[in-house]
């Protein structure tokens, strides 16, 4: 079984998000980067499914050379080899096209991503790659089991879940529940240094979107504190002032 896992290089979850250049660029000063946490779940499941000589896991990232430490982290967790498409990721459409171009003649059985990247919150790449490759895509999955040629998948829906099967090649975006994120051990970290990391050129694609500006949420006013023994005041404020109940 050959699995491709798409990974994104994102700011650490504790990052305070600020912008520069008149709010047109993300301020990268002092930001620590990590493997997108959901992609780590996807990668961990891919490793579980191929452990014991049952297959290989390749990770792919679309980004510039600054992403290499994040890619090496994925190799340390347990991917066998890595590919970086050397380009600044313009939008999900661009990223998905690059991944699809790489994957189209490589015969991967399964392609996995995280449910979304925690920077642009797209959840677009998986389904877009699926469309470019004309294979089924399942978004936001909670469980993934493979038996023979058939995958059984649990997917989240509003207020419940859906269980579905898919045979043959497919792509899925993984959420919590698919696997416990694996932590690299010392051997993994050592071997990651020598695992193959191929750097490929990007293919040209028309622009369909661009971010023109960022905004940060408007600050809230000062909190109105209510004494603990006056819960009825809270109810009446929520009713008549905030008008939410």
């Amino acid at each position, binding site marked *: 079984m050959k699995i491709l896992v798409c990974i994104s290089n994102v700011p650490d*979850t*504790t990052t*305070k*998000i600020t*912008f520069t250049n008149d709010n047109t660029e993300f301020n990268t000063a002092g930001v620590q980067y990590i493997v997108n946490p*959901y992609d780590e779940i996807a990668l961990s499941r891919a490793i579980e499914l191929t452990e014991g000589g049952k297959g290989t896991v390749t990770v792919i990232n679309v980004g510039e050379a600054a992403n290499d430490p994040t890619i090496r982290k994925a190799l340390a967790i347990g991917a066998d080899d890595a590919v970086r498409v050397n380009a600044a990721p313009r939008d*999900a*459409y661009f990223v*998905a096209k690059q991944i699809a171009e790489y994957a189209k003649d490589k015969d991967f059985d399964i392609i996995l991503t995280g449910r979304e990247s925690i920077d*642009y*919150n797209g*959840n*677009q790449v*998986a*389904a*877009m790659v699926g*469309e*470019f490759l004309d294979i*089924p*895509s*399942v*978004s*936001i999955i*909670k469980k993934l089991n493979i038996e023979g040629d058939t995958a059984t998948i649990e997917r*989240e829906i*509003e*207020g*419940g*879940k*859906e*269980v*579905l*099967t*898919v045979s*043959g090649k*497919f792509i899925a975006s993984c*959420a919590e*529940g698919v696997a416990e994120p694996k932590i690299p051990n010392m051997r993994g970290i050592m071997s990651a240094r020598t695992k193959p990391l191929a750097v490929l050129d990007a293919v040209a694609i028309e*622009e*369909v*979107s661009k*971010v023109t*500006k*960022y*905004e*940060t*949420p408007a600050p*809230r006013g000062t*909190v109105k504190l*209510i004494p*603990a*023994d006056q*819960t*009825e005041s*809270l109810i*009446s*404020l*929520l009713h008549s002032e905030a008008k*939410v*109940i």
Partner: protein
Amino acid sequence: MSVLVYVEQAEGKFKKSVFEAVSYAKAIADQQSTNLTAISIGDVAEGELKELGKYGASKVLNVSADQLKTFVNQAYASVIAAAAEKEGADIVVLSNSFSGKGLAPRIAVKLKAGLADGAVELPSTDGKFAVKKTAFSGKAFAITELTSANKVIALNPNAFGVKENATDAAIETFSADIKQSDLGTVIKDIVRATDKVSLPDAELVVSAGRGLKGPENWGMIEELAGLLGAATACSKPVSDADWRPHSEHVGQTGIAISPNLYIAIGISGAIQHLAGVSSSKVIVVINKDPEAPFFKVADYGIVGDAFEVVPKLIEALKAHKG
């Protein structure tokens, strides 16, 4: 040129988030001085389809093929894209629901369209078609310009609201060719907790954290949520410890929500948690630690022990409801 909105049905019914997407799409159609067409896939009775007119859809395309009775991501995307082409729709709107998140990117690729998902406002009308969407898990917004001729927008629940705009909707049957290769996924089972409010599109949410000390103490949280008609949610440490299911985890690595009211009980307010809930319209924080960072972003707060405050709050709510 027109606007097409996909109206997702669940067991033959439309939810509030669908009427919201129709209201939003109608506002875009008005901006563009064009008409709004809705497309429904699956078994929906005519009376329910007519409801869409209330929110501004002047035409409803009804697709009810046998193979499409339950959700098939690939085939649904093909049908919606085919409808957009046939109708000459250059803007496709969906609700940013779990299914919408799977459909919108496929439709965008089919139509070579830019996609703004997680949209929170109407597009700008200054000559550029730019949509404000959530980014960095609620820590920021990105103004995303869709530069392609076709455009796809997935609207966040509770971002726009339901707006009535009475129109007489003409119902038309729409039949699209369904490719066998589009039917690769087969649904085996659907489990819906019908007695609970679904968290992603809930208007009111009661959430609790480690301050509750253990899963056995969630009775009062559920009682409070039940009285309010609210969904229940939790912080990451709580779902990590399996006190509550992962589907209730809100925050940066859980789901981001934007209800009208978010009540946080025994949650300190780590930056990752705040990211997922900061676009709530009103935030109430109940915490025994007056220094809890959550109070800095709250509208109303009670400093006190959850085990004393919540039962009193339940009593006060019962009294309020009479």
